[in-house]
């Protein structure tokens, strides 16, 4: 007989015990592997979603509110020999008039035939007055092919809506179209450039029709490049430089003036043009509200600031040169003073009137060549107005002040400036972040304009106008691959099952080895070395571990399916999609199997070492189960630790009461944890003491119970520890569930004290706190809306970095917040703050910049840590509106706020770096809780044309909390299952104990004990384990969550937690009851004979 045969013979002989050990290994490994496969599955599913939403698109360019020629795409196609597809995207509200269903956040995408080439199997393409709806849009609106849908599409315009004088009117266009087809996810329905697993609501209409509707004929704001592995994004970005035109960045030449569609030429572009044409002359033309002198006033005139010397001598800072028309109107002469009144954008981002006084240096005839009507920029709402009374400007215009002669001037000279001031003076008083020039005058004799245009374009980087291709496919795949690690997450969540399985396996193995102690002793006597015996036993364990690892790994696939079923249904809040599909990777299976094997072997090896420490004599006597002959060296330490931890816990609890509320939970939690450790250490000490003999008399009922519990101290302690830890974790986890019940009024809470979170599809430009704004938007007429405060937030579009998005995000949405208000109300609390930030006024830190191009930002701590995988002090790279690199430095982390998913920067810095940033699509409302519902209804009604959705701030917070709460639910359920598994383990151990003690029980019978008494004794023994375990976990846990329990706003999930505890108790009772009853059905007396 060789060693292998011996091992196999052993395995077969002890097959029942080995099968139970195998089952333990399989359970542990399957949960472990299942969790790892969840990680793979989520990553794989996100990558699949990326492929589905992008089709064959590899690179994309999106300029949002800037527009370029559609032809640019075709020219790029020719240049790069690739498929470059133009498209246009805008936000919209979609309405089904038949059932009044509406979706506020719809993406309308203008596409042409080329768009179809991007998809392997596209839905049919829309024709005029037709639309293709994504499946989710159609389902939500209840539409089918052939139905009609009303679209209200945001009309962005060429100029920034935030620029001075741009008309503040509802900029949308409505169109009713027929549903031509419904596109499934994989047939372009899920198209989106954003890294998010949540499907967007898409509506596709013909590109030409969309451009026509938005009055952007021939333009687009998106280019998509079909799959092309041979080139990089750099190739396309370089190719743009070779084919683009000035129109692509909104510049146009009219006569001898270069103008822009955007009113102001951005500084980098203006400097590029001026460096390309050194003779060029920068001009700033501005609308002034009045030019007045001694009671006479000329309303609404254009004044141009330029450096032209006119008469050979530059204008001084306070000098003005006026037209003869103005001089006659105001009856002024050279040397008189004039006052100009004009609007500027104030620090509070509102228009404020300012004034300056100028001395008339010269009066020139209006026929002078300098009085050029082309100098007036293309003000939307003004340039194309028939008369002054038709003006639509973003600034208030008092039409009553417009005289007949003003109308005549407009009819005859249009926006020809009535005066000139020095350029520097103009730039100083009319300074704004959009640019310092409205036009650049070029010499009449500029030769060969096309060549000059090319020179100008070589001086400009496309990126400065947002023209940059991004490798969206690679970015998407990277974002998916770096997504939330669900593998690790579920490993943590399933920790208790794995631990329970491991403990169970170790217990069973220990039982088996101890049962074979005598055999071990015999082998020792027969001359086997300890390492040989160890190798034999460990080889048996290894075979079981390997078999269990492999089988568990395969069973992990099934476990994974169960977990994914949970994720796609019950725990959907954690992933916000039902598209998570299983992905079984061989490496993961191997990892799971090897991990299971390794963990099992380590655990079994430790158990074996403990048992093989017994002396030969003890082993041959077969009494390795009893407490060691020598006193446990750690016994006193256990006693001391128990005392120390318990005392410390009580001291902390005593100290915690007087502290402020913020400190209490941490202190109580620490005390709870110390009590738990102290309790377990105390129990260990107690069992050791009881096992030792004195102190507890065995002639009493409870004495016998304690002695028997102490007999197999390790088994008893393992079972009680598992129960205690499980109970403690379940209750503590239950207490960690975040609630957002009545936190509204507390500014330090996650809502910041705000009542409502309103988000509109189209921006609200009006200042809703001003009387004019309230009047304009109809808020003043609503009695329920009186006394409300509106906190309007600007935004730069980006990815959602909240826990609702599983993808790794590199550029989250940026919100510009008014720090003075947040500082005043001391809104939100911080989990962390960077160095040097005033703790009392943290929001002020957002206003200061340490160096140009580096701006501070706050974000939710969870976003920083998990969404961005950054830390305080790290930076994120963005591009400002003018294309410069902008480093956003994380200066602080908010503690669980409604801003989760976004970066918060100062509104003033946002206006400086992103002047066109959409004005307030997000509005936070402060008002009385009692009127929450009526305010919601009225606001949604008043802003219905802008697609406003109003959500209670607590509800928004609850949505974020629901993710974490879902994880906690998973933990509670899996943890509960783990503990129940532990109780089953306890049942098996009990069964084994009983069979080992058959002779003892038979002896009781022989000595005249009644069966009922013995049964009572055994039940009491095991209930002692069950209740001690639960109580040792329950008491510390209740101490730990005491602040939550007494808090009036906290809602502890009693039902869930109590159900699981009850289930644990029941399973424990079943596990105790069945073996006892089965044993007592047998005749025990023969057991004595075998002695």
């Amino acid at each position, binding site marked *: 007989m060789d060693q292998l045969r011996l091992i196999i013979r052993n395995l077969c*002989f*002890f097959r029942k015990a080995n099968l139970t050990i195998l089952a333990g290994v399989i359970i542990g490994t399957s949960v472990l592997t299942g969790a790892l496969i969840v990680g793979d599955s989520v990553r794989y599913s996100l990558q699949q979603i990326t492929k589905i939403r992008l089709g064959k698109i590899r690179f994309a360019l999106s300029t949002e509110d800037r527009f370029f020629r559609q032809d640019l795409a075709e020219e790029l196609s020719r240049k790069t020999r690739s498929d470059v597809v133009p498209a246009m995207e805008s936000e919209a509200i979609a309405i089904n008039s038949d059932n009044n269903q509406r979706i506020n956040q719809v993406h309308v995408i203008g596409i042409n035939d080329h768009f179809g080439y991007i998809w392997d199997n596209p839905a049919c393409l829309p024709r005029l007055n037709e639309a293709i709806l994504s499946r989710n849009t159609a389902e939500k609106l209840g539409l089918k092919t052939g139905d009609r849908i009303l679209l209200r599409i945001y009309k962005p315009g060429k100029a920034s809506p935030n620029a001075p004088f741009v008309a503040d009117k509802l900029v949308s266009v409505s169109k009713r179209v027929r549903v031509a087809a419904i596109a499934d996810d994989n047939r372009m329905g899920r198209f989106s450039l954003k890294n998010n697993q949540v499907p967007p609501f898409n509506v596709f209409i013909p590109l030409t029709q969309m451009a026509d509707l938005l009055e952007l004929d021939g333009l687009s704001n998106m280019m998509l490049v079909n799959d092309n592995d041979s080139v990089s994004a750099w190739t396309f970005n370089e190719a743009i430089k070779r084919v683009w035109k000035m129109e692509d960045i909104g510049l146009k030449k009219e006569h001898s003036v270069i103008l822009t569609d955007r009113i102001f030429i951005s500084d980098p572009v203006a400097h590029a043009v001026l460096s390309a044409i050194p003779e060029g002359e920068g001009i700033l033309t501005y609308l002034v509200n009045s030019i007045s002198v001694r009671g006479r006033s000329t309303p609404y005139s254009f004044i141009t600031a330029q450096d032209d010397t006119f008469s050979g001598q530059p204008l001084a800072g306070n000098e003005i040169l006026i037209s003869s028309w103005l001089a006659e109107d105001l009856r002024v002469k050279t040397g008189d003073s004039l006052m100009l009144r004009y609007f500027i954008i104030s620090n509070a981002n509102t228009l404020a009137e300012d004034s300056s006084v100028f001395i008339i240096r010269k009066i020139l005839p209006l026929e002078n060549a300098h009085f050029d009507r082309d100098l007036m920029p293309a003000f939307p709402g003004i340039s194309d107005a028939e008369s002054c009374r038709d003006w639509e400007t973003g600034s208030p215009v008092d039409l009553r002040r417009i005289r007949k002669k003003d109308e005549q001037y407009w009819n005859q000279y249009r926006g020809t400036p009535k005066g000139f001031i020095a350029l520097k003076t103009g730039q100083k008083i009319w300074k704004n972040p959009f640019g310092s020039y409205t036009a650049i005058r070029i010499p009449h004799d500029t030769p060969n304009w096309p060549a000059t245009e090319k020179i100008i374009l070589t001086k400009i980087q496309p990126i400065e106008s947002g023209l940059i291709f991004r490798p969206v496919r690679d970015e998407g795949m990277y974002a998916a691959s770096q997504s939330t690690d669900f593998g690790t997450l579920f490993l943590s969540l399933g920790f208790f099952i794995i631990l329970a399985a491991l403990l169970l396996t170790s217990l069973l193995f220990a039982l088996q080895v101890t049962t074979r102690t005598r055999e071990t002793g015999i082998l020792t006597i027969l001359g086997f070395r300890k390492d040989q015996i160890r190798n034999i036993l460990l080889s048996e364990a290894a075979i079981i571990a390997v078999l269990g690892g492999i089988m568990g790994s395969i069973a992990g696939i099934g476990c994974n399916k169960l977990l994914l079923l949970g994720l796609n249904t019950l725990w959907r809040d954690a992933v916000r999609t039902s598209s998570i599909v299983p992905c079984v990777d061989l490496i993961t299976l191997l990892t799971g199997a090897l991990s299971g094997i390794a963990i099992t072997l380590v655990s079994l090896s430790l158990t074996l070492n403990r048992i093989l420490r017994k002396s030969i004599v003890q082993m041959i006597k077969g009494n390795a189960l009893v407490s060691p002959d020598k006193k446990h060296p750690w016994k006193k330490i256990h006693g001391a630790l128990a005392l120390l931890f318990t005392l410390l816990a009580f001291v902390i609890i005593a100290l915690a009461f007087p502290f402020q509320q913020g400190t209490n939970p941490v202190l109580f939690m620490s005390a709870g944890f110390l009590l738990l450790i102290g309790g377990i250490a105390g129990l260990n000490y107690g069992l050791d003491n009881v096992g030792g003999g004195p102190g507890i008399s065995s002639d009493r009922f409870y004495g016998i119970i304690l002695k028997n519990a102490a007999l197999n101290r390790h088994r008893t302690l393992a079972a009680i520890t598992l129960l205690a830890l499980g109970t403690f974790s379940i209750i503590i986890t239950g207490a960690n569930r975040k609630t957002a019940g009545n936190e509204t009024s507390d500014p330090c809470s996650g809502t910041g004290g705000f009542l409502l979170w309103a988000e509109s599809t189209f921006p609200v430009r009006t200042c809703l706190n001003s009387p004019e704004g309230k009047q304009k938007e109809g808020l003043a007429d609503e009695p329920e809306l009186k006394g409300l405060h509106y906190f309007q937030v600007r935004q730069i579009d980006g990815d959602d970095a909240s826990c609702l998005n599983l993808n790794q995000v590199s550029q989250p949405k940026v919100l510009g917040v008014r720090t003075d208000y947040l500082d005043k109300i001391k809104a939100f609390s911080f989990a962390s703050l960077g160095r040097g930030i005033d703790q009392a006024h943290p929001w002020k830190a957002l206003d200061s910049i340490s160096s140009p191009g580096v701006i501070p930002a706050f974000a939710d701590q969870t976003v920083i840590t998990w969404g961005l995988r950054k830390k305080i002090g790290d930076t994120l790279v963005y591009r400002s509106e003018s294309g410069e690199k902008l480093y956003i430095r994380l200066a602080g982390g908010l503690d669980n706020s409604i801003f989760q998913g976004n970066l918060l920067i100062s509104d003033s810095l946002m206006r400086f770096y992103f002047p066109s940033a959409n004005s307030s699509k997000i509005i936070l409302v402060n008002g009385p809780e009692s009127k929450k519902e009526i305010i919601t209804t009225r606001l949604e009604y008043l802003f219905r044309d802008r697609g406003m959705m109003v959500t209670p701030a607590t509800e928004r917070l609850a949505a974020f909390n629901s993710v974490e709460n879902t994880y906690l639910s998973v933990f509670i359920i899996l943890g509960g299952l783990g503990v129940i598994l532990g109780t089953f383990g306890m049942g098996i151990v009990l069964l084994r104990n009983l069979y080992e003690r058959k002779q003892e029980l038979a002896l009781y019978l022989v000595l005249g004990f009644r069966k009922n008494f013995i049964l009572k004794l055994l039940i009491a023994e095991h209930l002692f384990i069950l209740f001690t375990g639960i109580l040792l976990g329950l008491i510390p846990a209740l101490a730990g969550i005491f602040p939550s329990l007494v808090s009036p706003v906290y809602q502890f999930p009693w039902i869930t937690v109590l159900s699981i505890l009850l289930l644990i108790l029941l399973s424990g009772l079943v596990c105790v009851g069945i073996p006892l009853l089965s044993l007592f059905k047998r005749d025990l007396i023969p057991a004595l004979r075998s002695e």
Partner: protein
Amino acid sequence: MKTVNMPVIAELQHITKTFYHIQYPASSIQHPASRPQHPVLNDLSLIVRRNESIAIVGPSGSGKTTLLNILGTLDKPTSGEVILEGQPVLKMDDDQLAELRNSRIGFVFQLHYLLPQFTLIENVLLPVLPTRDKARQSAAHERAWNLINKVGLTLQAHQRPAELSVGECQRAAVVRALINQPVLLLADEPTGSLDAENATMLASLLNDLKLETELSMVVVTHSMDLAEKMDTIYRLQSGNLAVFDK
């Protein structure tokens, strides 16, 4: 048989073995350090010569098994020395002791301690496993069958212990003890679990084997029938050995 001139196989020199006397009266608790020490073996010496058989008798708890365990290197004395074939064994490490037990000492206990998962022949050959010497293994195999044949268990060789009688198991245990041709056989109450017939048969078997193999033998027993079949009988009393007159 006179063995005085035969070489010494094993020797116990001034062996003392002390255990803590653990007693917990219900009324009092004593600290272990304050409890009285009780020497089981007190300055005990013993010489075992080749082909000599020694019986050790004495009342229960007198330390007979302790003495045997010390001689068999299963336990260590509190003081004194154990010499086996001229080598002091107390300085040996666990591996050397294992090798020594495997090759030079055979054990027989009151219970046969055959492993239930193996057949009789496999149990007999179990002590051969620790050695990697193929020739020795092969020789042991042949020897096993000879011995099995000798003790009349040929027909039962492929049966498991559960299928054998207690007497057959005990005979198999003796064969297992002799498989590696030890110089010293230690038997602790070998007939204790047997009926009179089987006990007599086992006693004869041990004697026959001793004569055939020049084996030295120390037998701890309560059975005077068995003891009387040995060359010398010692009585263990008060921690020391005294020659027991037959």
